[in-house]
């Protein structure tokens, strides 16, 4: 699992980056990263990132277990039939709207700075938006987890992750909209470049919001179940 952490997502990012780089290189553009830089990045990954993940895992293993407040039964409980608005697909899609709504105005400026070569300087603002985003994600995840548990559906682990992470899909959708309305990119290579980088950005956003959702739901569930008496 430790190794998977070290390789899965960095591997995906690096893979996309590598393919895009080949495309840029094919165009003889100076945007192509030379071999030495590629090597330096691989060194950063394998020489710094991977050992640090292992170190982190080592410390993690040495720490005491988290005491779970309730015991898990041997036999899984039957989940009652859920009404339409509690179906996974629906809650996941709805959950992503608010985190996306919190960032999309800033997203416009960030995309303009990347693709229209404008300077971006509203870092104070961005920090504020990030804080708002984190809070919104946490609250949405907790609220949805609460409703779900009230409906006696206990499969909340993935749901809490995805209901926030779905905002990553909205980000990618917005990228498509931005592409068609604001940019005049015609070359196929440039189009692939755009969508490749936006894909990386969306995955980053997906993971960021999702993990906040899951961690907040976890602490929420842990808190409410440790405050009730169970015989």
């Amino acid at each position: 699992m430790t190794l998977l952490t070290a390789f899965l997502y960095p591997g995906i990012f690096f893979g996309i980056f590598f393919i895009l780089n080949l495309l840029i290189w094919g165009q003889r553009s100076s945007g192509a990263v030379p071999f030495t830089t590629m090597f330096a990045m691989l060194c950063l990954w394998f020489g710094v990132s991977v050992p640090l993940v292992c170190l982190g895992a080592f410390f993690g293993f040495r720490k005491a277990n988290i005491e779970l407040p309730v015991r898990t039964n041997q036999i899984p409980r039957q989940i009652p039939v859920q009404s339409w608005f509690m179906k996974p697909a629906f809650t996941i899609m709805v959950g992503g709207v608010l985190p996306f709504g919190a960032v999309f105005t800033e997203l416009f400026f960030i995309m303009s700075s990347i693709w229209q070569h404008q300077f971006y300087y509203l870092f104070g603002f961005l920090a504020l938006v990030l804080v708002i985003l984190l809070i919104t994600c946490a609250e949405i995840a907790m609220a949805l987890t609460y409703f779900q548990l009230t409906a006696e559906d206990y499969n909340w682990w993935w749901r809490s992750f995805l209901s926030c992470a779905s905002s990553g899909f909205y980000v990618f959708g917005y990228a498509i909209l931005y592409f068609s309305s604001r940019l005049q990119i015609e070359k196929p290579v440039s189009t692939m470049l755009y969508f490749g980088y936006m894909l990386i950005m969306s995955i980053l956003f997906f993971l960021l919001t999702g993990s906040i959702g899951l961690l907040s739901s976890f602490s929420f569930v842990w808190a409410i179940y440790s405050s009730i008496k169970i015989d």
Partner: protein
Amino acid sequence: MSGRGLGVLLPCLRLVTSFYLPGLSPVEYELGATVEMKVNKLTSVKTQLPYDYYTLPFCRPRVITTSAENLGEILEGDRIENSPYEIRMLEDMTCKVVCKQALTVEMRKQFQKMIKHEYLVNWIVDNLPAATKYARAGKNEVTYINGFPVGVQKGEKYHLHNHVRINLKYHTNPDKYFGYRIVGFEIEPFSMHQAVKEKDGVLQASCQDGDAAPIFDLDVHDELTFTYDVAWAHSEIRWASRFDNYLKMTGGPGQIHWFSILNSLMIMLFLSGMIAVIILRTIHRDITKYNELASAEDAAEETGWKLVHGDVFRKPRHSKLLAVSVGSGVQIVCMSVVTLFLALLGVLSPVHRGALLQSCLLLFTFMVSSQATWHRVSTRPFTEPIGSR
């Protein structure tokens, strides 16, 4: 986690600052001192593919040298090289010839292709990128764009910008420092056909001012001359705020943007506040109810979330993937928070080329240690054999 995060942050800070960050401290030039002009990549919003300046047959210096670059600059495709343009502090020049060359069919094609794709030339003087002033259509205000176009396309005709007026601004304060500091760098590009004659082995050109000059059409002429003017002007802008003009480039009626952002933020805050209140109150009621019921031994009628207490920590399907995603996610959260923090401190601003991207990358790799710890702890339930305790 925060303690560990800080521990990771400190070496990072040192690392980031030890890398080359351009434009951190002011440079004073003496009267007549050489001000080096550097060239950067050619960029286009239309293709997003940057090219080296010397892929186009511009005038070349005798030896092309590349300036030191950091990781972020390389990733952004920056290639900063020297140029044959000679600029001296407070020395105005008019119509100075850089070079004259024959215009071949091959060169014509290259220029036309770049002009067609709306490529911009990026020049740098004293770490200050060149800006071009242009008036917004239909409005009385002036905005700046980064760099200047290689040329303009008028229907089937391509007009190459082969003459530039370099407007430099200096600031001086004899009480505080000696010499002159450069606080502004603007370019006015022109397309003109200069009259060139040779005198004592030196090329001399006469550039006609303004619109009177004949335009340099790529298809018409077969000799290409690059010329430039240099004009120095005093400015009240201090060195510390010389980047303000560039930051205004984002343009548009700024207040409208601010208003809309603020509006959405208010809605967000209000909404999350509401959710928080509802959840806190309902759950508090639930908990007291459940605990009362348990004491009254009325457990048969219990409903709601207490019912699933035996399953709530059941290991989910594909738990490994979930744990890995959360692990990487935490890493990204830490990276964003620290990067923004550094940006707020002013360590990373757009003024420092490539710094932002580079620090993101470094922080991402260094954050692993902090996230992995957290990740092991938080995902412990997944690895436990469920139901054994």
